[in-house]
């Protein structure tokens, strides 16, 4: 008798997760980094001309968006960012996060500079296809910067103020509603303060 209950038990476990998944809105998670200075970094940019770091934007309010070409949710978020970028409200910096995954067939075994080249190629193609909302894109190949920022999953979005302090963090897809109700008012208040 007992073994025939296993499917039921498994299914009930699944239902619990589905129910919690339905109820929850965990897309806004309090981050320990809120109101703390944005961790410094210096990473190669997508176009490869020079390195970029947060201090380059000191004095400006800006957004950091973590993405990757392998991220399906990013594909959904992307048009929203492209439309937002057209308003020229703030510069959006793209952080290409662990573009080459360890299990990647093509790039997993490459040397670091070849990896960077492949990651750049993929990212450029992807941005050509889906539009480029970023004023700059930086390549975080090994994900160390992501770790410093406490990246849970891709996509993530941060708002950083003029003093370089993180003021807002969003885990998951940014929606037009969220931009209008939360992010844009926050940016306005940060810019006038």
């Amino acid at each position, binding site marked *: *008798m007992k073994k*025939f*209950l296993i*499917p*039921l038990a498994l*299914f*009930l476990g*699944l*239902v619990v*997760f*589905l*129910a*919690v*998944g*339905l109820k*929850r*809105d*965990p*897309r806004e*998670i309090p981050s320990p980094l809120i109101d703390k200075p944005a961790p410094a970094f210096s990473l190669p940019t997508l176009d490869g001309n020079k390195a970029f770091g947060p201090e380059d934007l000191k004095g400006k309010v800006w957004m950091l968006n973590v993405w990757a070409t*392998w*991220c*399906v*949710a*990013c594909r*959904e978020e992307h*048009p929203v960012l492209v439309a937002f970028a057209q308003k020229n409200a703030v510069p959006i910096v793209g952080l290409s996060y662990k573009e080459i*995954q360890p*299990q*990647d*067939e093509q790039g997993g075994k490459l040397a670091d500079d070849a990896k960077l080249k492949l990651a750049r190629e993929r990212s450029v*193609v992807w941005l*050509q*296809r889906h*539009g480029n909302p970023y004023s700059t894109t930086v390549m975080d190949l090994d994900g160390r910067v992501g770790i410093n920022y406490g990246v*849970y*999953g*891709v996509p993530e979005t941060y708002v950083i103020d003029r003093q370089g302090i993180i003021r807002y963090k969003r*885990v*998951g*897809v940014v*929606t037009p*509603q969220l931009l209008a109700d939360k992010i844009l008012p926050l940016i306005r208040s940060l810019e006038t303060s």
Partner: protein
Amino acid sequence: MIPELGHFALILAAVVALIQGVLPLAGTVRENLAWQALARPSAALQFGLVAVAFACLTSSFLANDFSVSYVAQHSNTLLPKPYQVAAVWGGHEGSLLLWVLLLALWSVSVALFSRSLPLAMVARVLSVLGLISTGFLAFILTTSNPFERLLPAAPEGRDLNPLLQDPGLVIHPPMLYMGYVGMSVAFAFAISALLSGRLDAAWARWSRPWTVIAWTFLTFGIGLGSWWAYYELGWGGWWFWDPVENASLMPWLVGTALIHSLMVTEKRGSFKAWTVLLAIAAFSLSLLGTFLVRSGVLTSVHAFASDPSRGIFILIFLALVVGSSLTLFAWRAPQVTLGGSMGLLSRESLLLSNSVILVVATAAVLLGTIYPLIIDALNLGKLSVGPPYFNLVFAPLMVPLLFIMIPGTVAHWREARLSDIVRELRVVGLLALALALLLPFAMGAWSLGVVLGLFLGLWIALGTLQQVLFRVRKPGRIGASFWGMHLAHFGMAVLVIGITGVKSYEVERDVRMGLGEQVTIAPYSFKLVGLQEVKGPNYNAVRGEFDVFKDGQFLEKMYPEKRRYFSSAMPMTEAAIDSGFMRDLYVSLGESLGGTPAQWSVRVYYKPFVPWLWAGVLLMVAGGLLAALDRRYRRAVNKAAQPA
């Protein structure tokens, strides 16, 4: 007036479905024959009523009645007529109505083609289907009414999502839903068998043809979806492992296990409990797929946020249907007798391995699909699981599965000897291996992956051919199901070779091109010779004109388009595809990059073996049809029915 008529028909249909779901079943408990006899007429009446509702919605679309909110959201006066019909299932409400219509169609088919079944069995099966239908109709009426009025009426509709304006998408949802919903028949038979406590070979024989037909539709539906993604999305990909695709793949995998397991149950009386569990799982996964897609928990978070009641309704319904069936299973399955004994190596044991691998593969896909949800529920953030996970987990599982396909058809029932199987298959195996080792040289690049993929494909193809040849030489009539099985297996071989080829040898070029420039993928070169503005009924487009050369010789012209639909800002890519026997040439226009003369980003792909993918799917579909139409089932049903 017409929308209200449709709404009213739908309410009546829900009432009739409830009667169909309750009375015949109660009749089997109280042995009231009159109540049992209600099953067939109520199924027919329910179908009629849902069909009226569906016709009403269709006519609202054709009449451009934008006072109906659903029509205003999904149609437009400029939308071509065929797409206005397809737009009926272009959104949430209408696709649910299609779901219910097809469920009613399956029910009425069971009612019609079950003359030889015992009345109590028919009553139970149709009751289960009636209860499912009641749930869906209640869902439509309470949360997703397609007939809701919009007052004042919109002056113009919002138009159908341009992605869906495509011939492939006109038939894709009905085919896929036929498969999804068809699994409900196998489910209903399984539940009826559990309820009656008579889980025997006759039950397996009755549900086999229904299950095979449902599987066939599902195969065709998934194939169409893949084909659509390939030429409409403009990325040249044909499988993305996104949640919606996975939602259709999971019932297919379990359905494949089910049709094989049903065979063992029919022939040998074994695996009864396992087969019933597979039947429950196949339909549960169809429901789960509906939940995942329709509640929006995975694909789009905002869709759910707009109407949380939908997700909760489906979840409760899912929990009720699956929970009660699994409870019934846990209660009744221990009483099931074991079938005939089987040896460690036998056709049964190989088919059981096939089932287990397919179930494990399904679990892997399910885990990858809902992993983001679980992480979400555990408060660990929102993330997405990409194709690398699926490729990594799925492909290794397919290797043993594909390998045992052929021994599984050769081995004897009950007890097989390894030496017999080896003797019968060694020539085929060696030939497949030799070809797999040599062919990659002819195709340009040799790698272990190619050899493995080719070997598996050739192994299945040659093994199948050998068995067909052996059988044809022997005397005696060959049943349609024999041809069906081998045709479907051969289709699988073609598909495997196709996937291997396209994965290993595709060449992709993303380039910036101006007029007169060309790009070469040896031996083909593509020259951009023109860019014209063209007008469609509800869009404007830029059409590129490419001259294609092979080894410097002019081959043909290709015309990819970039369309801008009036109703939405999203530009749509219409790739130009030239299909040959061995390869596709694929050209699509990316973005205009400005400049004078104009520069465009252009994607050019050389995609070998893509036509093999579609050919493989079509062969499987043909095999499924042949197997389902075997006369044996009808005769066998008659025989089985006599003692009852």
